């Protein structure tokens, strides 16, 4: 499982649309061989079909698709946006953080979601992710040091 390590985090990304934001987060996973390109298309497609419910919490979008759409191994990437983007959610817009989830059908999937909940369920940590200017700051938050 790859969870928000340095290669899977991009800070200050400049994007204009939700689709572009999802593709950026997906691209990090593609580069590391975690997913195939089809999975990125599936995440964008899912956002377009199912709507903005992937904005799970204020300011946080979590695009994902079904594991069989092209996940090689489980992983999570993060793109911090330079300027927030409207995804069309009634109460959680605008989005500052895009967390792409490549799940699997295994037990590992639950472990990933639990780790994510620990970080994203804590407002101080979320604020830290939004304002971080270096990977070191992100790493401390992810590893539970702050």
């Amino acid at each position, binding site marked *: 499982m790859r969870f928000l390590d340095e290669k899977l985090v991009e800070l200050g990304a400049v994007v204009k649309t939700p689709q572009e934001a999802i593709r950026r987060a997906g691209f990090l996973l593609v580069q590391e061989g975690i997913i195939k390109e089809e999975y990125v298309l599936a995440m964008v497609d899912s956002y377009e079909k199912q709507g903005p*419910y*992937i904005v*799970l919490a204020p300011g946080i979008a*979590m695009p*994902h698709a079904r594991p069989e759409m092209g996940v090689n191994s489980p992983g999570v990437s993060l793109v911090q946006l330079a300027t927030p983007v409207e995804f069309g959610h009634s109460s959680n817009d605008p989005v500052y953080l895009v967390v792409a989830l490549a799940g699997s059908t295994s037990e590992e999937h639950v472990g990933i979601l639990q780790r994510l909940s620990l970080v994203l369920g804590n407002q101080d940590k979320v604020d830290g992710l939004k304002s971080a200017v270096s990977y070191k700051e992100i790493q401390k938050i992810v590893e539970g040091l702050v």
Partner: protein
Amino acid sequence: MKILAVCGLGQGTSLILRMSIETVLSEKGVVADVDHMDVSLAAGTDADYIVTSNELAQNLRNHRAKVIVVNNYFDKKEVETALQEVFEKL
């Protein structure tokens, strides 16, 4: 009592929501059957309560279950407040 956590795909989002619900229920000592699934499967699944986002709630308005809307899936406080009605009935 049966509670469904519902999202668009039934994979990531609803599982996170289910974990938040289960944590809140166990803290309250409430025993319930909690399951997670996608919105189309949920439409045809019997339940007493459905917890989902405002975006998906309108797809489930014909369901027998009472639909409870949660905005922040990670926020246990919000899930707890949203489920308050369930606790009061017990």
